[in-house]
């Protein structure tokens, strides 16, 4: 089966998922992102790589952070940017996703950044669009959030360049998390030898070990000697019900406190894709502590998204 995100000669055509992405392309994205980190520190924070191109942010599901960082990334590349919150416009009038895409294509959009609540939405759109258009998945259901996975890998590489020698733990709601899936694929592809997932059985997908991870249910055991702790956001609707009894009990068992973090390596870094629930998955003392790299993640997110967009545009 041909990988739908690559061209016939193996170049990146769409960014839909990290799974199946050749290591060379992941590295190319991260290396390109390095060159963009400096752009934000200049007085004129712009490069002309996407001048004359139109990037269309299509958000079928609400988001503030991801939408904003994509917008900033596109603008720093000098693209024209349109942002549509489709959940509040044409979808409520009954227009299908593909009709929306066709209409925007008729307006000569060059790149779509898509977020949708259903797994596979970005793949479907990529299959449908004209050959010159690029699609970037900004999160589809529980499936993938590749730019998040890449920016996390980028952040880790910056702080812990020896990726071949790392132990990484991902903690929380793996079952519903597109971020976790993308992180797992990014890290295993880049050669991180041990990726752990830590969660109660109710928040783990069936056969998760097939993704190449080690499964832990006890956080204290799972955090032992890790170099990186990646926390996941617990969605409000999961905090009580059949999957978890309460946010308090969750904090007690899987919340990252200074005491639990002490089990990791002394120089371990703490990450979170945001937005955080302080006191649910993470203690403020950790979130704001000196091991936290949560804000640098946001900064690097822009550089990584610039890298993805410029590489796609270069492959047109």
């Amino acid at each position, binding site marked *: *089966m041909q990988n739908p995100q690559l061209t016939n000669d193996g170049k990146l055509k769409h960014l839909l998922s990290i*799974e199946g992405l050749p290591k060379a392309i992941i590295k190319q994205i991260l290396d390109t992102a390095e060159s963009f980190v400096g752009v934000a520190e200049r007085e004129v924070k712009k490069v002309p790589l996407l001048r004359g191109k139109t990037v269309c942010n299509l958000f079928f599901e609400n988001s503030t952070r991801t939408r904003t960082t994509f917008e900033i990334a596109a603008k720093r590349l000098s693209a024209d940017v349109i942002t549509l919150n489709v959940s509040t416009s044409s979808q409520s009038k009954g227009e*299908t996703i593909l009709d929306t895409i066709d209409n925007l294509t008729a307006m000569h959009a060059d790149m779509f950044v898509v977020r949708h609540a259903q797994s596979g939405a970005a793949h479907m759109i990529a299959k449908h669009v004209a050959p010159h258009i690029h699609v970037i998945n900004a999160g589809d*259901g529980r499936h993938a959030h590749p730019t998040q996975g890449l920016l996390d890998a980028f952040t880790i590489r910056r702080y812990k360049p020896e990726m071949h020698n790392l132990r990484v733990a991902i903690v929380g709601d793996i079952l519903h998390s597109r971020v976790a*899936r993308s992180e797992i694929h990014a890290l295993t592809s880049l050669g991180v030898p041990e990726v752990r997932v830590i969660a109660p059985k109710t928040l783990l997908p069936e*056969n998760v070990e097939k993704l190449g991870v080690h499964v832990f249910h006890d956080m204290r055991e799972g955090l032992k000697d890790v170099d990186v702790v990646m926390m996941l956001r617990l969605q409000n609707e999961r905090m009580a019900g059949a999957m978890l009894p309460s946010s308090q009990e969750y904090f007690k068992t899987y919340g990252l406190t200074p005491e639990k973090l002490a089990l990791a390596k002394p120089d371990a870094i703490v990450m979170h894709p945001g937005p955080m629930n302080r006191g649910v998955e993470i203690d403020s003392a950790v979130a704001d502590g000196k091991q936290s790299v949560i804000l640098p993640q946001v900064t690097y997110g822009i550089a990584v998204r610039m890298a993805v967009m410029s590489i796609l545009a270069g492959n047109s």
Partner: protein
Amino acid sequence: MKIHIKNGHLIDPKNGIDSKKDLFIAAGKVVAIGNSPDSFVANQTIDANGLIVIPGLVDLSARLREPGFEHKATLESEMQAAVAGGITSLACPPDTDPVLDEPGLVEMLKHRAKQLNLAHVYPLGALTHQLNGQEITEMCELTEAGCVGFSQADIVIKDTQVLWRAMQYAATFGFTVWLRPEEPYLAKDGVAHDGEVAARLGLKGIPAAAETLAIASILRIAKETGAKVHLCRLSTAEGVDMVRAAKKAGQKISCDVSANHLHLTDFDIGFFDSNAHLRPPLRSQRDKEALSAGLIDGTIDAICSDHTPVDDDAKLYPFAEAEAGATGLELLLPLILKWAEDNKLNLNQAITAATQMPANILGVAAGDLSVNSNADVCIFDPKKYWKVEANSLFSQGKNSPFLGLELAGKVKYTLVNGHIVHQST
């Protein structure tokens, strides 16, 4: 009209025939096999040299979409598809709009089907009013109108008390209850087998336990109430084991599997191919092999097409939102042939599961070519390959996980009641 089918290789599992034999048809019936009856003068002779002659196939699950869903398919298009696939008798589930829960609707469907004069249509009546899982239907009246059994289609009865009563009532009159085993809460919102692929793609899974828990309760209630039960479309290895054990213990029960599940697994979802969104979901390789083994050892009685034509638009959604189902009538025979070849079975054994066995389950006179039986016949070329694509299908449903594939087995002639209703070059 007298027809002489000559030089064909005749396979009729019921009568143990698997050799080159001529078939003689008169007045809609089979009048002789092998040697011509005295003074038989054919109006038409079909030269079946190099072809295989079998009883018309009997399909236990074909949605015709009428009444109510004519934008997906019509009785006419789907009956054409049936005979083009060599299917001469089919059972259709009651999930039309309106639901087949009133005798008038069933009579109308039977009448429309009869007018088209293609395949024989055997409706399954709704087990509960509107399939609502609360009030049972007028099963005696519905049977009189032509229903051959009672089904809930894909809508599960959640209230076990109602299921119990429905089965008791059906048992009173000896009616068969057709149920697709699925525990509704475990399967809720699920769209794929709860395994590695669902974990990777981030699709909500349906665990195998959704099927096995339902089988356990159905088997128990059937035993308590004495109801005749037919389990529709098994999908799990454990489910096959449970039916095997129940049959061994003497419980009278039958079951079927869809041809799709004999060939595909959840890996065929690939990158979210909505054509592989089926119900029950495609499961693991291990399940697929167990279904095959169950069919070979007789635990599973029949193969059905599970024909579910879906309009193109309904598939143009992300995987989970796309409507489940695949077109199947014209693929049934080629998929059975492929299954036989893959498992090194002789055709005789494979074809039983789509002729004699399903006819027994339906309790209708079909599925064999005995002298004096209805002349429902399928004549096909086992070596002719054809490509599954939109314009090679008569069915209005062009949705298939097999699109683009070349399959062997092309129906040349289909006869129903001694009339040629389909012929291809």
